[in-house]
C-alpha cells in the first residue's frame, strides 16, 4: 500500500454548481517526487486540501470516496493530527508566517504540538540547516526576501518532520534563482531523507529535471500520468493545455523532421550529450546563422518616447533603489526589464507615471519633462498594470470596473460606453460584463485589470509581472495579446523574471541589478552575456543553455527559442547522418 491512497474521490465546494474533483484514483509510494500540473482551475489545489484533511474538516462541501495518507483516513482524523504526517506549503509565503522572528516561526508548529524544548531546538536547527537559512535564525521575518520567506515556510513545516510534503506553487512569487534554490532543497529532502514530495507547478521546465513522476490534472480528473518522458511526449498532455518542457519539445520536433534521439532529454545536458557526436564541425560552422545578423536587420528606432536621464531614488529604508539610471525607450518598442527581486525594476516603472519622483535626474515622456505633471495627468499616456489584480478591483461588475478610470479622466458617457465595449471585446470578457469581478478566476481577474487600463487607450502600456501565477494557456494568450498591441503601435514595457516567456516574445532586454542597468540590448545579445546575466541572477532560457554547451561544435550560442533551434539543428544533423 502506498503512502497516499486515493479512491474514487469526488468533491464539490459548498454552494458550487459543479464538482471540483470528479473521481480521482491515485497511489503514491513512499519516497516518490511527483510533479502535479494542469491548467488553472483544474482542481490541483482542491486535491492538496484533501491530503491533510482541510477538506472535509475546514471546507465542508460534499466529499465522496476515501483518502488515506500515511495510513490515516483523512475523514477520521482532524487536520492538526494529520499535520504531523503531511506538511502543506502554500503559494504566498507571507500568509504562512506567524512569528516575528525566524526561529520562533519554525517553532510554531512544534509548540502547538507540545514538543519539549530540547527536542524542539534539535528539530529547528535541522530544519534551518536543510533549507539553508540557519544564518538568518534571529532575523525579523518581515525583513526577509521573498525567496527566504518561502524557504522559511518550508523549514517551519519540515521541523514537524512530516513524511509527505505537499507544495502548492511554492515558487510562483520568486525569481529564477530563488526558485532553483527551492528545487534543490526539495531534491535533498527527497534523496537524503526519503521524503515523499508532491509539487504543484506551472514552471515545468525546471521541475521536470527533478521529479520521478508527472501527474496531469484536467477538469477535476487525472488526464495523464507517468514518467516525465512518457507524459510530456504524449499527445493528451498537449491537448489539455499544459506547457511542455522546452528541451522535450525540441526533441519532439526534431523527431518529426526524422531526427530520432535514443532517450527523451529531461534537461539541457541530456540533450547535448546525445547531439554532440552527431554534429560535424565543418558542416556546423558552414550552416550556422551569422549571430550578429539580427543586429543589422532588426528594427530601427527614431522617436524616443521615454527618456530617463540619471535618475536616482532612495526609499527611507533602502539606499540607492535606483542609482543613476539612464534609459531611452522609443515609440513602438517592446522592452522587458529583468533582474532579481529587489533590483529596482518596479521602482523604475513607478517613475514612469509619477507615482515616484526622481530625487536626482529627470524623466521626459513624449518630449516633455514630467516633473510638474500629476499622476492623473501622466496616467493618460502611461498605463500601468500592477501584478496583483486584487489590489485594484472593487466595483460591482466588470463594466463598472473598466469605466472607473474613464470617469476619473472625465470622458463623456457615450465615449465611455464605446471604450468599455472595445476593451470588453479585446479581452474577451463579454460574458462577464455584468458579473462581479470577485467571482471570476485569477486569470480572468487579471484580464479585467488589464482591460480597465487599456480602456483609455494609453500610448505606453507598462505591465508589472504579467505572467505570475498564470498557466501555460493564459501566458500564450497574453503573448498574442501583446503582439496585437504592438501592431497597433503601442510602446510596451514589461517587468518580469519569466525567461521562457521573454524568449518567446523576443523584446529588447534591460537587465537590472542593485538599482543599476547592467545590460541593455536585443534579447540575443543580452541572454548570452554570461557575466551580466549572472550579476542580475537571471538564468538563460533552456534552449540557450543547450546551445551554449553546443557552441564548441561551431554552432551559434545565441539561440533562444525552439523554432530557431529546430531549424539550425535539422540542418547540421541531417548533414551528419
Amino acid at each position: 500500500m502506498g503512502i497516499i491512497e486515493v479512491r474514487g474521490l469526488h468533491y464539490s465546494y459548498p454552494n458550487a454548481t459543479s464538482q471540483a474533483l470528479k473521481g480521482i484514483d491515485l497511489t503514491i509510494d513512499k519516497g516518490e517526487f511527483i510533479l502535479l500540473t494542469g491548467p488553472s482551475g483544474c482542481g490541483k489545489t482542491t486535491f492538496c486540501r484533501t491530503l491533510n484533511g482541510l477538506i472535509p474538516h475546514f471546507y465542508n462541501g460534499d466529499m465522496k470516496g476515501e483518502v488515506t495518507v500515511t495510513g490515516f483516513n483523512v475523514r477520521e482524523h482532524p487536520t492538526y493530527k494529520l499535520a504531523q504526517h503531511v506538511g502543506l506549503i502554500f503559494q504566498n509565503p507571507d500568509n504562512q508566517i506567524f512569528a516575528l522572528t525566524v526561529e520562533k516561526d519554525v517553532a510554531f508548529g512544534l509548540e502547538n504540538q507540545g514538543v519539549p524544548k530540547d527536542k524542539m531546538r534539535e528539530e529547528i536547527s535541522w530544519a534551518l540547516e536543510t533549507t539553508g537559512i540557519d544564518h538568518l535564525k534571529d532575523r525579523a521575518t518581515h525583513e526577509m526576501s521573498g525567496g527566504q520567506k518561502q524557504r522559511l515556510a518550508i523549514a517551519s513545516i519540515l521541523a514537524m518532520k512530516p513524511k509527505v510534503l505537499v507544495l502548492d506553487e511554492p515558487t510562483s512569487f520568486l525569481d529564477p534563482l530563488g526558485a532553483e534554490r527551492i528545487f534543490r532543497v526539495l531534491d535533498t529532502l527527497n534523496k537524503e531523507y526519503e521524503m515523499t514530495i508532491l509539487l504543484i507547478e506551472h514552471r515545468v521546465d525546471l521541475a521536470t529535471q527533478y521529479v520521478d513522476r508527472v501527474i496531469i490534472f484536467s477538469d477535476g480528473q487525472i488526464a495523464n500520468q507517468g514518467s516525465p518522458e512518457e507524459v510530456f511526449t504524449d499527445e493528451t498532455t498537449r491537448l489539455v493545455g499544459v506547457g511542455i518542457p522546452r528541451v522535450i519539445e525540441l526533441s519532439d520536433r526534431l523527431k518529426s523532421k526524422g531526427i530520432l534521439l535514443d532517450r527523451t532529454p529531461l534537461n539541457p545536458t541530456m540533450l547535448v550529450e546525445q547531439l554532440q557526436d552527431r554534429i560535424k564541425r565543418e558542416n556546423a560552422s558552414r550552416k550556422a546563422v551569422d549571430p550578429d545578423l539580427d543586429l543589422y536587420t532588426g528594427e530601427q528606432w527614431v522617436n524616443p518616447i521615454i527618456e530617463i536621464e540619471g535618475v536616482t531614488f532612495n526609499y527611507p529604508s533602502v539606499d540607492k533603489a535606483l542609482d543613476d539610471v539612464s534609459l531611452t525607450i522609443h515609440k513602438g518598442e517592446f522592452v522587458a526589464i529583468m533582474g532579481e527581486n529587489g533590483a529596482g525594476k518596479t521602482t523604475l516603472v513607478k517613475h514612469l507615471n509619477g507615482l515616484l519622483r526622481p530625487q536626482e535626474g529627470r524623466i521626459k515622456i513624449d518630449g516633455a519633462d514630467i516633473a510638474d505633471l500629476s499622476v492623473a495627468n501622466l496616467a493618460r499616456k502611461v498605463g500601468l498594470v500592477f501584478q496583483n489584480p486584487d489590489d485594484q478591483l472593487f466595483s460591482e461588475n466588470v463594466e463598472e470596473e473598466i469605466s472607473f478610470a474613464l470617469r476619473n479622466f472625465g470622458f463623456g458617457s457615450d465615449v465611455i460606453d464605446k471604450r468599455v465595449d472595445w476593451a470588453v471585446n479585446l479581452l474577451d470578457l463579454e460574458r462577464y460584463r455584468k458579473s462581479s469581478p470577485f467571482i471570476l478566476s485569477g486569470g480572468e481577474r487579471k484580464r479585467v485589470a488589464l482591460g480597465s487600463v487599456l480602456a483609455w487607450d494609453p500610448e505606453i502600456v507598462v505591465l508589472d509581472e504579467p505572467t505570475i501565477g498564470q498557466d501555460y494557456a493564459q501566458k500564450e494568450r497574453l503573448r498574442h495579446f501583446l503582439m496585437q498591441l504592438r501592431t497597433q503601435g503601442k510602446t510596451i514595457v514589461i517587468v518580469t523574471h519569466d525567461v521562457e516567456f521573454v524568449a518567446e516574445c523576443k523584446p529588447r532586454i534591460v537587465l537590472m541589478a542593485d538599482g543599476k542597468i547592467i545590460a541593455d540590448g536585443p534579447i540575443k545579445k543580452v541572454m548570452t552575456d554570461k557575466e551580466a546575466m549572472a550579476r542580475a541572477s537571471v538564468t538563460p532560457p533552456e534552449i540557450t543553455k543547450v546551445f551554449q554547451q553546443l557552441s564548441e561544435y561551431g554552432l551559434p550560442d545565441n539561440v533562444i527559442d525552439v523554432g530557431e533551434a529546430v531549424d539550425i539543428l535539422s540542418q547540421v544533423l541531417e548533414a551528419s547522418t
Partner: protein
Amino acid sequence: MSLLEGLRFTRGDSLIHRLDPRVKFLMTMVIFTSAILFMDLLPLLTIFLVQIPLIFIAEIQQEWTKSMKGSVFLATIIFSTNLISYYFFQSRSLNTENVETALALTVRFLNLITSFSLFFLTTSPDKLSLALEKARIPYEFNFAFITAIRFVPVLADEAQSIIDAQRSRGLELDKGSFLTKIRNYIPILLPLIINSIRRSLDLAEAMESRAFGATRDRTNLFELVMEGRDYAVIVISLVLLAAVIYMKLYLPPFEPLFPYRVLI
C-alpha cells in the same frame, strides 16, 4: 504621529532590553504611580531627571527625543489650558503658584510619555506575549496580538500597492469637497478589506497545517526566567515606591520653588 514613534519597539541589547518584561512593567508602574501621586514641580522634575539616565542606558535617546518633540503640542495645550482655567475660573489673576502647578502638570504628562516609551521601546512584542502567557491570558488572545503586529508591515505594503494601482487609474485622492474626498477612499478601502478576508482564509489554512490547537499543553521555545538583575530591579523599585508613599503620607508638602508673586 511622532508621539507614537516612542511606542514602537526598536531592537537593541541593552541592560534595559534584557530585563524581564514583567519586572520592567513593575518599574514602569512605579514611575507612573509616583508621577500620579505628586502635584508639585520639585518631585515631578526629579522623577523626570531620574529617567534620563535610563533612556541613555537603553540607548533609545533618538526615539525618545522624537516622541518628546511629538509631545510638544499636547504639552503646550496642557500648560496653557491650566493657566487659562486658573485665570478665568478662580481669581481673574495669575500668580507664581499657578504657573508652577501648570508646569508641574505638564512635566507629569512628559513623565508618563517617557515611562511608557521606556517600556514599549525596549520590549519586543515576542517578550510581551511571553509575559502575557505567564499572566495566564489564554493563548488565543496572545496569538491574535502577535499576528496583528506581524501583519502591520504586510498590510502597509498592500495599502501602498492599492493606492499606487488606483492612482495609476486616475484616482485623485485629495480632490473635491470634503464628502468627495471621503468617497475617493472607497476604491482603496474595498480591495483592502476584500484582500484581508481572503488572507484570513489563507492564514486559517496555514494555521491548521501547523497543528494549531493540537494540544492544550502548548510548549514554548523561549521561557521567561528571572535573573539576579531582575530581582535587583524589583527590590529597588519596591523600595522607591515605599519611599514615595512615605513621603506623600508622612512628610510635610513641598515648598514652592519660586517665591510667591502675583503676575497679572
